[in-house]
């Protein structure tokens, strides 16, 4: 079944077509979300939201781009929204903590470390360090870098996903790498791992 038939099926509410779409792209969507949010449970929830949105809005898909481009676009937007919401929550939590003395926070500490219990501490520290460095990148640089590094997308497809020019993608990825290197150098000098 080609992409056009698949989309037509989904537009008509055919569950079988939807299942094929999900099974074909599930790994890709989860991986994209995971690269941005760094938490497997959140990434899977986000991926589910992405597919639900696809099912709900399939009739708006005009077929100008590939399904994968559409999926990447929704996945990155949703992942960024989650991060923004989490930041907002943390901000209000920090305000609450100043009044309550942080009594309610004990259960939430190290919540992201439960994904891979078999990894040793140094691996986990290095992974955290890398994630923090990626998270500190400006949003557009982060998306371009993530799609390029984690998904190995060519610059042209990144440009389509982000709806920007090819030269902008090149510039974003170049700056992202420079920023990342600066942060890792800083970490290396401070012997943080």
């Amino acid at each position: 079944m080609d992409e056009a038939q698949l989309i037509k099926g989904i537009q008509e509410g055919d569950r079988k077509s939807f299942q094929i779409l999900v099974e074909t792209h599930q790994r890709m969507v989860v991986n994209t979300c995971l690269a941005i949010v760094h938490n497997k449970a959140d990434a899977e929830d986000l991926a589910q939201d992405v597919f639900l949105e696809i099912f709900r809005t399939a009739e708006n898909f005009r077929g100008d781009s590939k399904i994968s481009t559409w999926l990447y676009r929704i996945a990155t937007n949703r992942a960024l929204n989650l991060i923004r919401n989490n930041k907002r929550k943390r901000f209000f939590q920090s305000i609450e903590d100043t009044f309550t003395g942080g009594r309610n926070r004990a259960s939430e500490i190290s919540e992201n470390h439960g994904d891979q219990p078999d990894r040793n501490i140094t691996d986990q520290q290095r992974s955290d360090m890398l994630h923090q460095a990626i998270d500190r990148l400006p949003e557009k640089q982060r998306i371009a870098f993530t799609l390029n590094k984690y998904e190995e997308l060519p610059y042209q497809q990144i440009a389509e996903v982000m709806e920007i020019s090819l030269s902008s993608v090149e510039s974003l990825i170049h700056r992202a790498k420079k920023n990342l290197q600066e942060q890792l150098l800083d970490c290396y000098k401070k012997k943080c791992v």
Partner: protein
Amino acid sequence: MVSYIKSNKMKTKCIDKDLIFYLDNELSVEKRTAVEKHLEECADCRSFLAFLKDGMQLIEHEKNPEASPFFYTRLSARLDQKTQQRTQSQWVRLVQPAFFSLMLVAGIFGGLKIGSNASSPKVYQQTKSSVQMLNDFATEPIESFLLDEL
């Protein structure tokens, strides 16, 4: 596991700003040769390159996580739930305006009914007598009436 040589301060001439591009094979031939030559001489840069390489390799390890076997089952259940909710909300969307319209019509009808009763001769008489009584208060204040009683 790479052991990092963390020695003296980085030299000012270190090429640490190009190393990530060196790792990704994005340097020109000339620059690449210069970097390789520098790396032979500079232990600090070699150490940082190893650190950087290890960091970037983590991305390779994190790629392609195992697919959850119950992903579609969960998704399908959520889809069913959403469809059910949508059907219910459609029902509510139809019934709610109908109910409020009915209430509005009943209110208007009730108001008209009360209004039509108000203009009947019987009610007119009652209103007239009560207005007259009120007018009497102006000519004969209640204070004087009470004083007369005493």
